[in-house]
Protein backbone atom coordinates (compact mmCIF):
# COMPACT_ATOMS: atom_id res chain seq x y z
CA UNK A 1 0.00 0.00 0.00
CA UNK A 2 1.21 3.50 -0.76
CA UNK A 3 1.15 6.20 1.90
CA UNK A 4 -1.82 7.82 0.14
CA UNK A 5 -3.70 4.53 0.15
CA UNK A 6 -2.98 4.07 3.84
CA UNK A 7 -4.12 7.63 4.56
CA UNK A 8 -7.35 6.97 2.64
CA UNK A 9 -7.92 3.72 4.54
CA UNK A 10 -7.31 5.47 7.87
CA UNK A 11 -9.79 8.22 6.95
CA UNK A 12 -12.36 5.57 6.01
CA UNK A 13 -11.90 3.88 9.40
CA UNK A 14 -12.36 7.18 11.23
CA UNK A 15 -15.41 8.18 9.19
CA UNK A 16 -17.07 4.75 9.36
CA UNK A 17 -16.50 4.21 13.07
CA UNK A 18 -17.09 7.68 14.46
CA UNK A 19 -19.29 9.44 11.90
CA UNK A 20 -16.64 12.08 11.31
CA UNK A 21 -16.54 14.38 8.30
CA UNK A 22 -13.70 13.31 6.00
CA UNK A 23 -13.01 16.99 5.26
CA UNK A 24 -12.07 17.51 8.91
CA UNK A 25 -9.35 14.86 8.77
CA UNK A 26 -5.92 16.09 7.70
CA UNK A 27 -2.51 14.61 8.30
CA UNK A 28 -1.74 16.97 11.15
CA UNK A 29 -5.16 16.55 12.78
CA UNK A 30 -4.90 15.37 16.37
CA UNK A 31 -7.03 12.35 17.23
CA UNK A 32 -7.90 13.23 20.79
CA UNK A 33 -8.09 17.01 20.79
CA UNK A 34 -9.38 17.94 17.34
CA UNK A 35 -11.39 14.81 16.49
CA UNK A 36 -12.52 14.45 20.10
CA UNK A 37 -11.76 10.74 20.21
CA UNK A 38 -10.88 9.00 23.46
CA UNK A 39 -8.89 5.97 24.53
CA UNK A 40 -11.92 3.68 24.11
CA UNK A 41 -12.29 4.90 20.53
CA UNK A 42 -8.58 4.19 20.08
CA UNK A 43 -9.21 0.52 20.81
CA UNK A 44 -11.76 0.44 17.97
CA UNK A 45 -9.26 2.17 15.67
CA UNK A 46 -6.46 -0.28 16.34
CA UNK A 47 -8.75 -3.30 16.04
CA UNK A 48 -9.72 -1.94 12.61
CA UNK A 49 -6.04 -1.41 11.76
CA UNK A 50 -5.36 -5.01 12.72
CA UNK A 51 -7.84 -6.03 10.05
CA UNK A 52 -6.10 -3.67 7.60
CA UNK A 53 -2.56 -4.90 8.25
CA UNK A 54 -3.32 -8.50 9.18
CA UNK A 55 -1.13 -8.05 12.22
CA UNK A 56 -1.72 -7.39 15.93
CA UNK A 57 -0.80 -3.74 16.52
CA UNK A 58 2.02 -3.10 18.94
CA UNK A 59 0.27 -1.73 22.08
CA UNK A 60 3.26 0.30 23.24
CA UNK A 61 3.68 2.04 19.89
CA UNK A 62 -0.08 2.51 19.62
CA UNK A 63 -0.14 4.44 22.89
CA UNK A 64 2.27 7.01 21.42
CA UNK A 65 0.11 7.85 18.37
CA UNK A 66 -1.43 11.32 18.57
CA UNK A 67 -2.11 12.52 14.99
CA UNK A 68 -3.49 11.09 11.75
CA UNK A 69 -0.01 11.27 10.20
CA UNK A 70 1.38 9.28 13.11
CA UNK A 71 -1.40 6.75 12.60
CA UNK A 72 -0.45 6.44 8.93
CA UNK A 73 3.21 6.03 9.86
CA UNK A 74 2.19 3.41 12.41
CA UNK A 75 0.42 1.41 9.69
CA UNK A 76 3.41 1.79 7.36
CA UNK A 77 5.66 0.38 10.05
CA UNK A 78 3.27 -2.49 10.79
CA UNK A 79 3.16 -3.42 7.10
CA UNK A 80 6.96 -3.18 6.86
CA UNK A 81 7.34 -5.39 9.95
CA UNK A 82 4.93 -7.89 8.45
CA UNK A 83 6.82 -7.93 5.15
CA UNK A 84 10.07 -8.44 7.06
CA UNK A 85 8.57 -11.40 8.87
CA UNK A 86 8.89 -9.82 12.30
CA UNK A 87 6.88 -11.62 14.97
CA UNK A 88 3.76 -9.97 16.30
CA UNK A 89 4.19 -8.09 19.58
CA UNK A 90 3.11 -9.71 22.81
CA UNK A 91 -0.40 -9.11 24.03
CA UNK A 92 -0.67 -6.19 26.43
CA UNK A 93 -2.27 -7.76 29.50
CA UNK A 94 -4.32 -5.75 31.99
CA UNK A 95 -2.13 -6.92 34.84
CA UNK A 96 1.08 -5.71 33.21
Amino acid at each position, binding site marked *: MTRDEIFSAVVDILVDNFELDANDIKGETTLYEELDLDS*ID*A*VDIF*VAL*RDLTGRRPDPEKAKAVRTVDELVAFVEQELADKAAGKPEPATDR*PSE
Partner: protein
Amino acid sequence: MTEELSKVSDTNVAGGSSSIAALSDGMALLEPEISQKILQIMPHRTPMVFIDRVVALGEGRVLCESEIRDDHILFRNGAVSAVAIVEIFAQSAAALIAAGLLKDPNARMAGALLGARNLFWSVETLELGKTYQCRAVDNWGAGALRQLECELFCDGESVAKGAINVVATGDIPTG
Protein backbone atom coordinates in the same frame (compact mmCIF):
# COMPACT_ATOMS: atom_id res chain seq x y z
CA MET B 1 -10.87 -30.53 16.63
CA THR B 2 -7.84 -30.68 18.87
CA GLU B 3 -6.58 -33.76 20.63
CA GLU B 4 -7.70 -32.32 23.96
CA LEU B 5 -11.23 -31.92 22.74
CA SER B 6 -11.38 -35.49 21.54
CA LYS B 7 -11.11 -36.50 25.19
CA VAL B 8 -14.21 -34.57 26.16
CA SER B 9 -17.17 -36.43 27.54
CA ASP B 10 -20.63 -35.04 28.27
CA THR B 11 -20.11 -35.79 31.93
CA ASN B 12 -17.83 -32.81 32.55
CA VAL B 13 -19.42 -30.28 30.22
CA ALA B 14 -22.96 -29.33 31.09
CA GLY B 15 -23.80 -28.31 27.56
CA GLY B 16 -22.50 -31.61 26.21
CA SER B 17 -22.01 -31.77 22.47
CA SER B 18 -23.34 -28.24 22.03
CA SER B 19 -20.47 -26.94 24.16
CA ILE B 20 -18.01 -28.80 22.01
CA ALA B 21 -19.54 -27.20 18.93
CA ALA B 22 -18.88 -23.78 20.43
CA LEU B 23 -15.22 -24.51 21.08
CA SER B 24 -12.70 -23.19 18.64
CA ASP B 25 -9.22 -24.42 17.89
CA GLY B 26 -6.60 -24.05 20.56
CA MET B 27 -8.87 -24.25 23.60
CA ALA B 28 -8.44 -26.91 26.25
CA LEU B 29 -11.14 -27.96 28.66
CA LEU B 30 -10.76 -26.85 32.27
CA GLU B 31 -11.15 -28.88 35.42
CA PRO B 32 -14.12 -27.68 37.53
CA GLU B 33 -11.82 -26.50 40.34
CA ILE B 34 -9.91 -24.23 37.94
CA SER B 35 -13.20 -22.83 36.70
CA GLN B 36 -14.19 -22.14 40.29
CA LYS B 37 -10.93 -20.32 40.98
CA ILE B 38 -11.49 -18.09 37.95
CA LEU B 39 -15.02 -17.27 39.10
CA GLN B 40 -13.66 -16.35 42.54
CA ILE B 41 -11.13 -13.93 41.02
CA MET B 42 -13.86 -12.23 39.00
CA PRO B 43 -15.59 -9.34 40.80
CA HIS B 44 -19.14 -10.54 40.08
CA ARG B 45 -21.15 -11.86 42.99
CA THR B 46 -24.67 -13.23 43.42
CA PRO B 47 -27.19 -12.22 42.14
CA MET B 48 -25.13 -10.63 39.37
CA VAL B 49 -23.25 -13.78 38.39
CA PHE B 50 -24.43 -14.61 34.86
CA ILE B 51 -22.00 -17.40 34.01
CA ASP B 52 -21.93 -20.72 35.83
CA ARG B 53 -18.61 -22.13 34.75
CA VAL B 54 -15.59 -21.57 32.59
CA VAL B 55 -15.53 -24.57 30.28
CA ALA B 56 -12.39 -24.08 28.23
CA LEU B 57 -9.48 -21.75 27.85
CA GLY B 58 -6.91 -21.02 25.17
CA GLU B 59 -4.53 -18.29 24.07
CA GLY B 60 -6.66 -15.15 24.17
CA ARG B 61 -9.95 -17.05 24.20
CA VAL B 62 -12.38 -18.57 26.62
CA LEU B 63 -15.62 -20.53 26.60
CA CYS B 64 -18.12 -20.05 29.42
CA GLU B 65 -21.53 -21.52 30.16
CA SER B 66 -24.66 -19.89 31.47
CA GLU B 67 -27.67 -21.88 32.67
CA ILE B 68 -31.01 -20.12 32.70
CA ARG B 69 -32.82 -20.78 35.97
CA ASP B 70 -35.91 -19.23 37.53
CA ASP B 71 -33.80 -17.50 40.20
CA HIS B 72 -31.99 -15.38 37.58
CA ILE B 73 -32.23 -11.71 38.52
CA LEU B 74 -33.65 -10.87 35.07
CA PHE B 75 -36.12 -13.79 35.00
CA ARG B 76 -39.55 -12.46 34.00
CA ASN B 77 -42.60 -14.20 32.51
CA GLY B 78 -40.83 -17.52 32.15
CA ALA B 79 -37.61 -16.36 30.51
CA VAL B 80 -34.67 -13.98 30.72
CA SER B 81 -34.55 -10.94 28.47
CA ALA B 82 -31.98 -11.03 25.69
CA VAL B 83 -30.41 -7.89 27.15
CA ALA B 84 -28.65 -10.30 29.52
CA ILE B 85 -26.55 -11.40 26.56
CA VAL B 86 -24.40 -8.30 26.80
CA GLU B 87 -23.66 -9.04 30.45
CA ILE B 88 -22.86 -12.68 29.62
CA PHE B 89 -20.40 -11.33 27.05
CA ALA B 90 -18.89 -8.99 29.65
CA GLN B 91 -18.57 -11.70 32.28
CA SER B 92 -16.97 -14.06 29.77
CA ALA B 93 -14.45 -11.33 29.03
CA ALA B 94 -13.88 -10.99 32.76
CA ALA B 95 -13.31 -14.74 32.98
CA LEU B 96 -10.60 -14.53 30.35
CA ILE B 97 -8.86 -11.70 32.15
CA ALA B 98 -9.25 -13.44 35.52
CA ALA B 99 -7.70 -16.59 34.07
CA GLY B 100 -4.57 -14.55 33.47
CA LEU B 101 -4.34 -13.92 37.19
CA LEU B 102 -4.61 -17.56 38.29
CA LYS B 103 -0.97 -17.78 39.38
CA ASP B 104 -1.51 -15.22 42.14
CA PRO B 105 -3.40 -16.83 45.05
CA ASN B 106 -4.49 -13.40 46.29
CA ALA B 107 -5.48 -12.03 42.91
CA ARG B 108 -8.63 -9.98 42.55
CA MET B 109 -9.74 -7.87 39.65
CA ALA B 110 -12.08 -5.01 38.92
CA GLY B 111 -13.51 -3.94 35.63
CA ALA B 112 -16.36 -2.43 33.70
CA LEU B 113 -18.18 -2.85 30.43
CA LEU B 114 -17.60 0.26 28.34
CA GLY B 115 -19.66 -0.46 25.26
CA ALA B 116 -20.74 -2.90 22.60
CA ARG B 117 -20.05 -2.86 18.87
CA ASN B 118 -21.87 -4.60 16.00
CA LEU B 119 -24.17 -6.45 18.34
CA PHE B 120 -26.65 -8.87 16.76
CA TRP B 121 -28.94 -11.44 18.31
CA SER B 122 -31.59 -13.75 16.91
CA VAL B 123 -33.54 -14.48 20.10
CA GLU B 124 -35.86 -12.29 22.16
CA THR B 125 -35.27 -14.22 25.37
CA LEU B 126 -32.99 -16.79 26.95
CA GLU B 127 -35.09 -19.85 27.68
CA LEU B 128 -35.59 -21.40 31.09
CA GLY B 129 -33.66 -24.65 31.44
CA LYS B 130 -31.38 -23.97 28.49
CA THR B 131 -27.60 -23.80 28.75
CA TYR B 132 -25.90 -21.13 26.68
CA GLN B 133 -22.23 -21.11 25.74
CA CYS B 134 -20.34 -17.89 25.26
CA ARG B 135 -17.04 -17.79 23.40
CA ALA B 136 -14.99 -14.63 23.93
CA VAL B 137 -11.89 -13.96 21.87
CA ASP B 138 -9.47 -11.17 22.64
CA ASN B 139 -9.34 -8.77 19.69
CA TRP B 140 -6.75 -6.32 20.95
CA GLY B 141 -5.97 -4.20 23.95
CA ALA B 142 -3.63 -1.63 25.40
CA GLY B 143 -3.17 -1.21 29.11
CA ALA B 144 -6.44 -1.75 30.92
CA LEU B 145 -8.58 -1.35 27.77
CA ARG B 146 -9.52 -4.35 25.66
CA GLN B 147 -11.92 -5.36 22.93
CA LEU B 148 -13.25 -8.91 22.72
CA GLU B 149 -15.26 -10.60 20.01
CA CYS B 150 -18.05 -12.62 21.62
CA GLU B 151 -20.54 -15.18 20.35
CA LEU B 152 -23.35 -16.96 22.19
CA PHE B 153 -24.48 -20.45 21.30
CA CYS B 154 -27.46 -22.60 22.28
CA ASP B 155 -27.91 -26.20 21.19
CA GLY B 156 -24.92 -25.77 18.92
CA GLU B 157 -26.41 -22.78 17.08
CA SER B 158 -25.13 -19.22 17.21
CA VAL B 159 -27.80 -16.95 18.71
CA ALA B 160 -25.88 -13.71 19.28
CA LYS B 161 -22.58 -12.08 18.48
CA GLY B 162 -20.80 -8.80 18.84
CA ALA B 163 -17.73 -7.04 20.15
CA ILE B 164 -17.47 -5.47 23.58
CA ASN B 165 -15.03 -2.95 24.95
CA VAL B 166 -14.03 -3.39 28.57
CA VAL B 167 -11.68 -1.90 31.10
CA ALA B 168 -10.09 -4.20 33.63
CA THR B 169 -7.62 -3.21 36.27
CA GLY B 170 -6.50 -6.73 37.05
CA ASP B 171 -4.30 -8.06 39.79
CA ILE B 172 -5.43 -6.08 42.82
CA PRO B 173 -3.90 -7.83 45.83
CA THR B 174 -6.12 -8.32 48.83
CA GLY B 175 -3.30 -8.55 51.33
